[in-house]
């Protein structure tokens, strides 16, 4: 039953974040003459694609009731692999980068499954460890892309749309369909809603969680490859603090940390909210520092509004 309820809850509710997205979109359109141009709008999509791609995978992991703090480190490692190995072969470099993401996601998932250690702790450790691997691999050096096809790819467009924006939107569509139309998506809600019941219902909980960790690992690596192709370079510090941005976006999109509810459309709203704020404040020449404060305030406001609007659950005790 949980799965069915979760299934509809995830789809039927319009996420309040979209009202906010529309509001700031209108606001910035008036505030800056450059904001409402096709070039700038596609620019926002490209800028948000990095955090956005990871957020797609993170949504599934968080609906499961887990969390993945290691995505920033995976992104950094994938970017360095994709740039560092391309002297040998372009295909090998990209395969190694994506493979590393999948492998590290699988390791995280396997540990969570087999040892039963909380995902927060497992991925906190992985975040430190993978960053350590990255520093040891790169010897603290930045890599520059030698293959111009690689850096051109990040800048290319098909018609009026940049390729990175297209990749991002296609992934959004795929993940939305996975979450709402497949048994894996249904199980994701079930597992987050009630793990014990989902085991009793025959869901292979461990495997299921591991698949979601692999998905987020893959997306983190993909984001790393695309980001490094955009920059034509990779630094060992790349992706630092990205886990915080990603979790912020997913939570803004209405996914609960306790698991069991959330949606890709909401996450898209959360990602766009961050992207539009950053872009719009940039255009208004507000120093970048203020974006951090504004985001923090918005995140807390969303929590407060969520608490006031939704009826407190029966578990809560009023004093």
């Amino acid at each position, binding site marked *: 039953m949980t799965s069915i309820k979760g299934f509809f809850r995830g789809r039927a509710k319009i996420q309040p974040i979209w009202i906010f997205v529309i509001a700031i979109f209108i606001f910035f359109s008036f505030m800056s003459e450059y904001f409402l141009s096709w070039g700038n709008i596609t620019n926002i999509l490209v800028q948000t694609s990095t955090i956005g791609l990871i957020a797609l995978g993170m949504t599934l992991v968080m609906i499961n009731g887990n969390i993945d703090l290691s995505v920033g480190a995976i992104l950094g490692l994938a970017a360095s692999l994709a740039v560092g190995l391309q002297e040998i072969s372009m295909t090998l470099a990209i395969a190694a980068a994506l493979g590393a993401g999948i492998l590290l996601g699988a390791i995280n998932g396997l*540990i969570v*499954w*087999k*040892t*039963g*250690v*909380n995902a*927060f*702790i*497992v991925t*906190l*450790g*992985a*975040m*430190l*460890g*993978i*960053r*350590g*691997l990255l*520093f*040891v691999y790169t010897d603290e050096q930045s890599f520059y892309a030698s293959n111009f096809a690689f850096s051109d790819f990040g800048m290319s467009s098909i018609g009026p749309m940049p390729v990175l924006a297209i990749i991002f939107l296609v992934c959004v569509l795929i993940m939305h369909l996975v979450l709402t139309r497949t048994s894996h998506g249904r199980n994701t809600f079930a597992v987050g809603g009630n793990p014990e019941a989902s*085991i009793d219902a025959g869901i*292979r*909980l*461990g*495997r299921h969680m591991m698949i979601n960790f692999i998905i987020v690992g893959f997306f983190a690596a993909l984001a790393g490859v695309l980001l490094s192709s955009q920059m034509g370079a990779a630094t060992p510090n790349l992706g630092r*603090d990205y886990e*915080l941005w990603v*979790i*912020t976006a997913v*939570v803004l999109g209405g996914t609960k*940390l306790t698991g069991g509810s959330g949606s890709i459309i909401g996450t898209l709203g959360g990602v766009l909210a961050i992207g539009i704020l950053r872009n719009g404040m940039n255009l208004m020449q507000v*120093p970048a*520092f*203020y*974006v*951090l*404060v*504004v*985001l*923090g*305030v918005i*995140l*807390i406001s969303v*929590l*407060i509004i969520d*608490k006031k609007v939704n009826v407190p659950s029966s*578990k*809560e*005790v009023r*004093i």
Partner: protein
Amino acid sequence: MASADQPKSGLPGVKLSKAGVMSFLSAQGILIFFLLGMLAFSLFSEQFLSQSNIMTVIRQASIIGIIAIGVTVVIIGGNLDLSVGSMLSFSTVLVVDLHDKIGPTNAILLMFAFTLMIGAVNGFLIGFLRLNSLIVTLAMLSAIQGLVLIYSGGQNVDIADQEGTWFAFFGRGYLGGIAVPILLFGLLAIVVQIVMSRTGYGRRIFAVGGNPMAAVYSGIRKNWCVFSTYLISAFCVACAALVLGSRVMGSQNNVGQGYELLVLAGIILGGTSLLGGAGSIWKTVIGVLMLGFIQNGLLLMGYPYYTQWIVTWVIIILAVWLDLANKRKSLFTTHS
């Protein structure tokens, strides 16, 4: 546990034979692992076990340790605090910047006041508005980092007259042959441990973290308890900022970036559960010192600096896993 709960599919849960030995090993596993590591380090490097090296390690660990004491109290109360890293940046920049403007005493007092105010904001949002502590402190992490950058204008700050100020005492001074940061770390650890284990207040924090509903029904003012844990955490951060600012006599505006994770790593390594209601300051002190000795030992053996992070990754998971395995009497979970 009998073999009745063997899983029906997937890999079978491995049962611990020779129960006594194994349960001892898994209960003390991390300590044994640590002692073996210390032994290996001391074999490879003569300096490792020298008194001056040990004092250096404890001194370096004291900043993370002081913060970890406060965060442990928050965790025992059933919440998390990820904002301590940004708060450390904030407090250090503030105290260093104000030092030359209004004098050391006023700077320290103002810094403590502002840090406690941030702690109060955290405590109000989490204790009274009952928002999720993970997200609130995540939001505060970003907001406070923004505040630091706005305050400093992105510039690093430092103290002009580094020799002639008594402010150096907290980070560089010695009292009775022992470095002041170590004394401060020890003193805070002892006081907070006594408060947590010997007073009614400490018992209430444990009760709130263990079972909030039961705590409320037995007349504990849960909101105030949670609120107060964030004040303690902020106070510890302020003490750490005092040591850090005084030792460096200057501050970058992101000096505390990533501290929240190292602090959590130390706490987890010590064996305090993140679920709340259990844990102790002693465990945290041991966990933080372990991190310090691992870092120091690996460096002395000539490994690159970042190797310690990879080792930390492995032992954090091992530590929690062994603890869990010991509780459920099987190494692996049984679901497929």
